[in-house]
């Protein structure tokens, strides 16, 4: 059975975002997910930052301080090789979860 929960989903969203966009800061991640999901998903900052730091501790993502286009200092995150592998796993898990949930919903 696929291991999945809400935290795992947030991780998946963040990892996927970083995989698509390359380098991004926390605010950018929130914005990206909101925009791409047509305002359906809104990531809470209260969950995002602890998750980012946890993933950094696990070595899935790296970070560095850099300037934004408006010349403001911000902390940018990017995917590591470990993170890329983790993303593949998370995607598979999620597919299975969706398949499973859908099967249950369709059951008449």
């Amino acid at each position, binding site marked *: 059975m696929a291991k999945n929960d809400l935290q795992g989903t947030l991780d998946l969203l963040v990892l996927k975002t970083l995989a698509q966009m390359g380098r991004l*800061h926390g605010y950018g991640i929130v914005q990206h997910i909101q925009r791409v999901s047509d305002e359906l998903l809104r990531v809470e*900052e*209260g969950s995002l930052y602890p998750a980012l730091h946890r993933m950094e501790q696990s070595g899935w993502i790296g970070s560095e301080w850099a300037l934004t286009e408006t010349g403001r200092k911000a*902390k940018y995150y990017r995917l590591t090789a470990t993170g890329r592998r983790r993303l593949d796993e998370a995607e598979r898990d999620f597919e299975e979860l969706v398949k499973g949930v859908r099967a249950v919903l369709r059951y008449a």
Partner: protein
Amino acid sequence: MGLWQRLTNLRRRERVDAEIAAELEAHIALAVEDAMRAGMSEADARRSARLRFGNPVALREKTMGADAALVLDGVWRDVKFALRQMKKSPGFALTAVITLALGIGANVAVFGVVNAVLLSPLAVRDPQSLYQLRHKAWAKGRLLTHSYPAFEDFQRRNTTFSGMTAIDAYSNGALRWGNAVTEVHGDEVTGNYFDLLGVEPGLGQFFHAADEHGPNSVPYVVLSDELWRSAFHADRGVVGTTVELNRHPFTVVGVASPQFHGTERFVWPDYWIPMLNEEQTTGVDYLHARASIAVTVIGRLKPGVTPSQAAENLSAISAELNKEYPLTDDGQPLRLVHPGLWGDDGAVIRGFLWSVTVLALLVLAAACANLAGLFAARAADRSRELALRVALGSSRRRLVRQLLTEAALLAVLGGAVGLGSAALLLVALNRWHPAFGGHVAVSVDARVYLAGLAFTLASALLFGMVPARQAWQNSPLHAMKSGSVESPHLRRFALRDLLLGAQIAICTLLVTASLVAVRGMERMLRAPLGFEPQGAMLVELDLSQVELAGPQGADGALVQEKAALEAVRSIPGVTAAGTVSRTPMTGGMHGVPVFRPGTVEFTLDHSVLAPYVFTMSPGYLEAAGTRLLSGRDVAWTDTAQTPAVAVVNESFAKKMWGRQPAVGQRFIVSGRLTEVVGVAQDGKYHDMEESPQPVVYVPLPQDEQSEAIFVVRSQRAGNEMAVALERALSGIAPNVPISVESWPDTLASELFPARAATVALGVMGLLAAMLAVTGIFGMAAYGVSKRMKELGIRVALGARRMQVLGSAVGRPIMLLGVGSMLGLACGVFASRLLGHIVYQANPRDPLVVGGAIATMALLGMAATLIPARRALRVDPSQLMREE
């Protein structure tokens, strides 16, 4: 992230904190910029960003929490917080640390002794396969079990041992090296001793079985490391030189290693000499005497042989020997024990130490119950603060961690103090040379430290879990609403009551135990000894060393002893003096078979009794304070030329002739028809716990026994007498080592177990009593302080003093009653446990029960006095104005 980075991060908490703050700040700034680009005013943009963001401090905390690197740092913060809490209530912290130090210290000290005596093996190769031969019948003391010829038979005929050695641990003499003479005690052992034990010399070499070529052929001596250091100044050149032992030359072949102290744990030999040369030190040849029980036999089992198989094999040999030598070998079945703890006394010592361990653990349990109660009370006081923290978003896990950290910190402090003092105590115990010349080698090794750590952590968990559980189950809403009034928390109160009740029960049990020990001690001190050690001195003087001027041989020795006695009697202040072959309770006594007149076949099964036989000079009974019940004492006129006579004791007279008068009756002892001339009172001869034993005293002039100890009774002070005695005797026997000791001192070893038990149990009882007082006091004082307002209202409404008192301290007193009853009941059931510690332990002794009840009542009164007074002095008007 590597461990190193985590550790360095530890010191960079502020930096990490600032970095997170900056990151979050940037987030808000970016959000504001975006909103302004969309056309919002700056103020509105900032407001909506902040609103969306929530509490920045909480988020920062949460993000920090995700930084695993900071977990260690979190622990450090908990410790700092706990230290601050302790500083806030130093009295509580001090009480807790002292309580724990006492509990843990007592346990570590007890464990240290257990570790040294029971857990650490003898310093020989494979100690598990080493066994000592004992007779089937259990006997206190009596290390010597076999004659040397019987040992040789066992050694030759057995099929179950890979080797057997014989030891006589009672060898002693004067050791001369150059001009220095030292009194030494050692072991006479067979040549294979060191090889059988598998020990290596520290210096030089040992002697071996191959060195033996018949009696007196191996004049070798091996010194103990201790003797080598004290008497030979650790001179490495001593190996190969010649020393004199009882005037016979012995070559020092080697020095034992510092770890090896023979096969007994408590008595360390100064030297080892080959048993073949024993005649040179003892003056008696026991190598050919089947009748003299002279050796301890120790053997190493062959691999794969069980002790019971070996015992069977040996018992069969014993039965064979009885058939072959019915005069001397009684054919008793044999039994095997591990050597080291004084023969069968090992069972007693083991029982004693394990029982004391149980009691020490009970003290620690009581200490933990005490602290758990205190902690629970404090946590209840802080329930509002804790609830507030939960409400503000602190996780319960964190609160519990905080409370456990406080408990662990106190436990570590208490444990360190306890371990430190226990280590000091053990070191002191190590240096202590008990009166009986024994050794207690207690090393504070890694195992002891580990035990201390285990005790500390276990107690921290025990008393830390109680408040932690409370905090876990606390509902913040409830706690904040009800404030510090906590009547609804009946369950919590019940838990605290349970803790105090258990603690009081344990305390009562320990107080009962110490009272039982004190009673046992008292009984022992009051037991009729049959002699009066108080006011008597024992003088040891080896007259056989003196070059005789007058007639040679036994007669000469007799003349000299008589002269010495007369010299002693003439010292002013001496009221009586006499000699005896061996004073009572110095061990090594064996029955000598006696026969009825007319017996022709002197085999053991024809003997009627096997009394102890003492050889005494005229006047010994008076000097020893033994009453003569009828007849006369022996006299100097009873000589080898006159008919053999003897004084017997009551038990002997009763067993031989019932109610008939014993004086004038005859019996055969040592092959001589002997007439009873007097009857003396019964006494204790081998140990305090023996049943009445038959005894025969034969006169010195009619026995060739050469050993004689002078018993001198005087009214003068001990040290003064010692000087006078030495002066008086040096005229007769110049240059002979004289040892003068007071009789009560030499008996100290016999009372040592009882004394040790009394001290151990007394200390435990005292600790438990202190814990009970602080426990009851803590609960009563806390209860009164919580209910001051209520009490004030009740006083204002006209409550009587007794009612106020009842509600203030009623509960602790009720608990005291219930706990004490439980403890007393436990004491009665634990009499088996106490039986290991104290001879004839009787917890049902009315004096003990009464004493325990009185003690607990006193403790209860002392502990509730102050809280009760506080409750009675409640001033309602002042109290009502306060809140």
